[in-house]
């Protein structure tokens, strides 16, 4: 089918419509939309191009593990030279090598912040816990909860409850008090829930203590966590809180 109109598209315009459609002029785009002959000529080029790409896309690029080996310096000899030659001519693999090297590079360590003092809270025996659990908002006993922790004049009661509003996780309800000060003094103090053993991971949840010494962590998933309370004098830490599903 041929186009016999005066504004029939040049072959290069047909190629632009295949490779770079956004570069096509408005007139050419309109002609393609209105002319079946030119549309079919463009589609013919597109079919060939797409069928070639479908079969040939990155056919000779090395597997990603070889790219990673090369970037990490694990590769030697002939294969290293072959991969190196390929990376020099293939921008896709060159990008993967750059990404790999960025990932393997040692992290840039900022000037070390002063290490805050850490106070590890001790779990008190259960019979003491049952006596104090009723003081919690929404408190009550259930499967080893509530729990009472103490450290250096600080008391922390912790209770686990089912999530409200149909949430998937659990709720952790806490009440903290300090022998030498009022609850208001702890208002605004941050409480962070961290995945145990992964200090580099940002806190999973962050909340603040209210003016009565309470805090609530909602939608807590199952897992093993450290609870960190950022008191002015240092971090109060409850290590290895196990929360089942």
């Amino acid at each position, binding site marked *: 089918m041929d186009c016999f109109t005066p504004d029939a598209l040049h*072959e*290069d315009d*047909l*190629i*632009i419509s*295949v*490779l*770079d459609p956004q*570069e096509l002029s408005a007139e050419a785009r309109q002609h393609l939309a209105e002319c079946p002959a030119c549309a079919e000529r463009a*589609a*013919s*080029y*597109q*079919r*060939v*191009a*797409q*069928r*070639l*790409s*479908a*079969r*040939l*896309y*990155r*056919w*000779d690029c090395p597997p*990603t*593990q070889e*790219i*990673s*080996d090369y*970037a*990490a310096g*694990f*590769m*030697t*000899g*002939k*294969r290293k030279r072959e991969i190196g030659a390929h990376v020099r001519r*293939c*921008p*896709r693999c060159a990008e*993967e090598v750059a*990404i*790999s090297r*960025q*990932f*393997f590079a040692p*992290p840039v360590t900022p000037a*070390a912040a002063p*290490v805050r003092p*850490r106070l590890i809270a001790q779990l008190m025996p259960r019979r003491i816990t049952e006596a104090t659990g009723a003081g919690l908002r929404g408190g009550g006993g259930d499967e080893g909860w509530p729990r009472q922790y103490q450290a250096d004049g600080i008391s922390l009661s912790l209770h686990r409850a089912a999530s409200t509003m149909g949430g998937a996780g659990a709720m952790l309800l806490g009440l903290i008090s300090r022998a030498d000060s009022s609850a208001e003094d702890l208002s605004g103090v941050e409480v962070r829930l961290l*995945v*145990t*053993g*992964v*200090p*580099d*991971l940002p806190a999973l949840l962050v909340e603040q203590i209210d003016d009565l010494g309470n805090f609530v962590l909602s939608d807590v998933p199952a897992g093993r966590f450290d609870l960190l309370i950022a008191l002015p004098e240092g971090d109060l830490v409850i290590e290895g809180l196990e929360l089942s599903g």
Partner: protein
Amino acid sequence: MVDASSDDLVGMDARQLAQRCTAEQQRYHQRQPSDDRYCLELFLRAIYRRDEIAWSLVYQQFFGTVLAWVHQHPCANLVLAHEEPDTYASEAFSRFWVATHPTHAPPQPAGTPAIYMSTPRFLTLASILAYLKHCLNGVMLDKMRWLQARQREGPLDPSISLPASEKSDQSAQELWALVERALPDRRERRLAYLLFVLEMKPREIVQHAPHDFSTAQEVYRLTRNILDRLRRNPALLLWREGD
């Protein structure tokens, strides 16, 4: 390997090693002096003795570390939109397990470099963790390639999908050989590679290879030549569209 005179390590079972490993890792993360020997011994038992209890404990101990690496990977934003981070971390451990045992590795073609045929040798915990990180990198790059391939598939003309007879025929290597033979001009062969093998856009091509292709218009013109040649080539009859 571990000093044979370290009786405390030799006499400890895997769970005892894991407990000490946990304690030493906590000291390390608190920037206190720490002893790598317990974690190293646990890993070495898993790798060289194929001790599955040791492996399970290694997995528990370091899964969180690998999870943190997932979030730190340059492709994290892209790949985490499609899978949970746990999936990538688990796959990294699986690759590590396979890579450190040659009999578990898939069959390798003739000429495979020795680096893939023998178990890597680890002398320090740092080297083991570096290799584990390297395995994770392979997992993340795989996902990135897969996502890039999915993005380019897009809404194809139904006539594009290759019939079964084509899929069972010529490998990509054979097809490329035919394409190269059909294009006598060096620049056209190079352009065909950049367009169809790497799927680069004309402006990317001009940036990447300015000595060969100075303008996008030149790329369009040469592409037309290429497609016209390939359509007329008898050896590539499979690629001619019907009337």
